[in-house]
């Protein structure tokens, strides 16, 4: 094989495999939690537990992110299941955007990566919370079934069994233990979401392999370009939220505001997440999940960069 082609292919395959291997355990955890919810929690039980009001629901979603942390790959199947269980969309979406960042593990890694700079930790929490609440409130206007693609919503109404699933597994019946059903369900859920994860890995791998390593240097001396460049990088490299602070901190020549934008947009919008959103949500919702966080984080980072430096 031609040496350059060999090298390109090798790097591409390594990046794709590495991102998948890093994300797969968390995706599996999400699939397991989602399947246990599916089998053991009837909709009315969850519905009673989650506040129905918009403000209280959004706040509940935010706090749930602190108490039930999951990474961004694992949270999507959980939220899909919560929505199918009639959890209000504003609470579920707020939880989905906040949980990968507003949790002790990620905040500790942010603190370490930025060498104890508490402003970066607070900035990250504040920006993610602001974005999650804004998106949660704006999606609260949409009926929860509209959040899911038409096909799945229609399955909900017509083909589902007693717990709201069309996978063919008998979740609550006497013919098999419920746990066995939940585990089989987790396998399908993993494949369902894994498909989108792999597409995201392919996209990130292509860009990391073929984008010149020097392209970011063009952006670093101008705040507007630096924030935009770092946000673009966060979207394409698709690093998990536990590790992204270390990557951001390595771009020391960029303004702090640009580094902050990197660690806030990445866990909410990146290539693998976009693919997963597209597989779960309606197109209109996918658009909101991409555009609103991008705008809020870009503008807030510019503002912070101008005021604080």
């Amino acid at each position, binding site marked *: 094989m031609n040496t350059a082609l*060999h*090298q390109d*292919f090798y*790097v591409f395959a*390594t990046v794709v495999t590495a991102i998948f291997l890093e994300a797969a355990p968390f995706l599996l955890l999400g699939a397991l939690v989602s399947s246990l919810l599916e089998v053991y929690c009837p909709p009315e039980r969850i519905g009673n537990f989650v506040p129905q009001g918009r403000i209280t629901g959004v706040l509940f979603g935010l706090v749930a992110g602190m108490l039930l942390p999951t990474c961004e790959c694992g949270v999507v199947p959980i939220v899909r299941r919560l929505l199918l269980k009639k959890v209000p969309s504003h609470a579920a979406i707020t939880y989905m955007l906040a949980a990968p960042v507003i949790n002790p593990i990620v905040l500790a890694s942010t603190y370490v990566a930025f060498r104890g700079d508490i402003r970066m930790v607070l900035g990250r929490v504040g920006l993610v919370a602001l974005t999650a609440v804004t998106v949660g409130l704006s999606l609260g206007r949409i009926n929860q079934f509209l959040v899911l693609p038409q096909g799945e919503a229609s399955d909900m109404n017509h083909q589902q069994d007693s717990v709201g699933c069309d996978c063919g597994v008998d979740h609550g019946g006497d013919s098999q233990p419920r746990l*066995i059903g939940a585990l089989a369900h*987790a*396998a399908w859920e993993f494949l369902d979401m*894994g498909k989108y994860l792999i597409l995201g890995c392919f996209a990130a791998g292509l860009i990391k392999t073929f984008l*010149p390593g020097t392209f970011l240097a063009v952006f670093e001396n101008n705040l507007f370009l630096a924030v935009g460049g770092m946000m673009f990088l966060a979207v394409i490299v698709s690093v998990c939220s536990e590790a992204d602070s270390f990557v951001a901190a390595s771009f020391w020549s960029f303004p702090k505001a640009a580094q902050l934008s990197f660690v806030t947009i990445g866990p909410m919008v990146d290539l693998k997440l976009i693919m997963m959103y597209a597989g779960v949500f309606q197109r209109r919702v996918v658009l909101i999940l991409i555009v609103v966080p991008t705008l809020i984080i870009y503008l807030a980072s510019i503002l912070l960069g101008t005021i604080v430096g």
Partner: protein
Amino acid sequence: MSKIGGLIEGGIVVALGLAMSALVRADNYWLYLHPKFKWLTLTAGIILVLVGTIALLYNRRPNLSRIVIFLTFSTLASIGYFLPNPTSSATSGPPEEVSSKKESRIVLDGEEYIKINLGELYAISEKGLDEKRAARYVARGIVKRNPELDEIGQFVLLRVFIWCCFADAVAVGFRVQCDQPAKFLDGQWVRVYGQLQDLPSQLAEPTVQVKGILSKALHKTDGIVATRVEKVEPPPIPFMFEFRKSEPYAY
């Protein structure tokens, strides 16, 4: 048809779980993920085998796109795994241990040099501790050259650090001042003996690239003034995974 679908999809999950479990025992796990995550990969692999085996028992309508995407990924990952690494001739193996303080130093021309990796050296340089800055160090990395650096007798010494996986890899390094940078080839592994010194860049950020790595931490003001640079074989594991704050350093 639904029976076949259940078998194929369950089989994919089982095969993926087996592959992940086997990878933990492979010599080049480090190429993809930091070795500290072996337990996580193994746990996920075992659970995938379990849930996949259970899923085999169920009838399910096959989903063609899911099957095609997973098979494409498996093919790509397998080819990548078995292809020789074109960026390093490193032979896989266990990491070298630097166990005692005596082994953590090398004597050259009567002077002791502390073995250190470039990440650890970068941390010392950033902290600006005079006592540590003044010491003599020996570090390994790959040479990155360009004509502008050649003209001023410098090259860049880089080594890749991995936080979690190859996707978040960062190339860490310094400019090295030496007599004949042209003696070394771009991408060649070398061992540099020398001291940290202010080495104000006469250039803008040197344009050096490492394929597949977008993030680079090249020290802006400090460099290594080399007393000797020698060609070496790549270390068994070329990446850095560990930063230590004192001797013996991870090297």
